[in-house]
C-alpha cells in the first residue's frame, strides 16, 4: 500500500498543474491514459522531482515510457525518498 501523502501530492500536481480531470486520478490509472503526450510526461516527471526534491534514476522511471500506473509511480517516489531515521 502506498503511503497517502505521496499519492496525494502526485494527484494534486496532476490536477492543478497538468489539468488532469480529478476522476481520472486513481491508483490504477496508467500515465499514458491521463492525456499527456511525451513532452508533457517529461515536464510531469520534472515537476514531480521538484515537488519531492529528489531525482528518480531513468532506469526506474523513463519519462518516455508511460505504461506505469500511479500506484507504481508512488512506490518509485517512496523508494527514492530519504528514509526517516528510526
Amino acid at each position: 500500500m502506498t503511503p497517502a501523502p505521496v499519492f496525494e501530492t502526485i494527484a494534486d500536481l496532476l490536477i492543478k498543474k497538468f489539468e488532469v480531470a480529478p476522476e481520472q486520478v486513481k491508483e490504477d490509472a496508467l500515465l499514458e491514459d491521463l492525456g499527456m503526450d511525451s513532452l508533457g510526461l517529461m515536464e510531469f516527471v520534472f515537476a514531480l522531482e521538484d515537488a519531492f526534491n529528489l531525482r528518480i534514476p531513468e532506469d526506474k522511471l523513463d519519462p518516455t515510457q508511460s505504461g506505469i500506473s500511479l500506484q507504481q509511480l508512488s512506490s518509485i517516489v517512496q523508494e527514492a525518498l530519504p528514509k526517516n531515521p528510526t
Partner: protein
Amino acid sequence: MNTRQVGIAGMGVISPLGHSAEALFDGCLRNQSAVHPFEINLSGLDPATVPVASCDFDDKAIKTPSKITPDRGTAMALAAAKQAFQNSSLDMDQLDPDRTGLFWGSGMSGAHSFETICRQIYNDHQRLRPTSVLTTMPNAAVAEIALALKVKGHALAYACACASSAVAIGEAMRAIQGGWLDVAIVGGHESMLMPGILSSWQAMRVLAPLSHDLTQAHQVCRPFAEDRHGFAMGEGAGALVLESVEHAQKRAHDHSLYMTGYATNCDSQHITHPDPAGQVKAMKNALKNAQLNAKDIAYVNAHGTGTQSGDAAEAASLAEVFGPYGVPVSATKAVHGHLIGAGGVVELIIALKALQTQQLPATAHVQAVDRNFQIDLIRGSARSLQQGRHVMSNSFAFGGTNAVLIASLA
C-alpha cells in the same frame, strides 16, 4: 468601401498601464507614468539602478495550450491575443482555419527564460527543463497563439527590434489584401526586465540615467525634450484582429476602424543611428499606400524614444514630411516605457483609441521641446482632435528597419 482597407475587429493589451486598450489609453491621457527604478546587483558588475516600466501581470497564472510553462513574454502574448479575439465579434468556429493567419513580432523573444537558463547553468549549476528550447525559440509565442486560436494559415514570427510588431501588422495587411487570408491575429510582445539583459542595455547607454532622487524616476523619459537622455525599458504585449472587408461583409459586419497604410524599408546606414532619409521614405510610402496626403493625417504617435540621436532624426523626418509644426505629435513611451518589439502595436492601439475618442495624448514630463525641432509636440495635457480621420504610428528600429502604419476611421 476600398478593398485595400483591412478592418480592425478587436484589440488586446497587456501593458504597464493596465491590461486593456482602455486602461492603456486612460493612463496615457492622464500622464500616469508606470516608470520606476529597478536595482541590478550582479556579481562582477557595479551595482546599478535603471528605469523600467513593468506589468502587474502574473505569468504563472497563464495556462498554455501546449501545457508548457511559458516564457513571461509568451504568457503576455497569449493573454493579449486571446483578449483581442474575445473583444472581436468573430466566432472561432465560424472561421476557416486555413484562411486565418498569425503575424507576431518580438525583439528578443524568450529573453526572460534565456537569462533564467543562463543562471541555472552558470550560477546555480542546476539541470535544465526539457522545455528549455521550446520556451526560448523565437516563434514560441506564435506556436502557443496558433494552438489557442486554431490558426492554420500563415503563422510567422518577425524579429526586427523596435519595429517587429509594426512589421508584423503591415505584412498581415498585405496577406489579407493579397487575398491569402480572411482574418489575421497580429501584434507582438516583449519581456526582458531581467538584470543581465538590462545591464546589456545600460552598457549601450540608451537607458535614461536616474538621479539620486529616485522619487523622480517616473519622469526620467522625456521624448523630444531639451533635456532628454534616454528611455525606460518596458514590457508587455499588444494584439489586433484584422479582417478583410469582404469577409466582414459576408457576416454583415461593419468595422469602425481600418488599417489603411503600411510601408517598411531599411536605412542601411548604421546599426543604431537612424537616418532621416529612410524614415522620410517610409512615411511617404505609407501615405502613398493609404492613398492619402500628409495633410490628411490628424495625429502621429512618434517612435520618440527619448534618446538624443533617435529623437533628432525623427523630428527632422516629421518636419520634412508634414512641414514645420505640420501635424500634432506625441511620444507615449514617456509613460509606458519602450516596449521594443511590442512598441509598434501598443502605440498603434493608442493612436486608434485617439481616433475613437477624439483625444490626443500628450508627451509627459516635457518642460521644453528641443529648440532645434520644428514639431507640434503635444505637451501638458491631452488635446482634442478637432477634425481628421487618419492617424500614423512610427516604429524605427536598431538595425535600420523602419515601419510606418496608418489607420483610419470608417
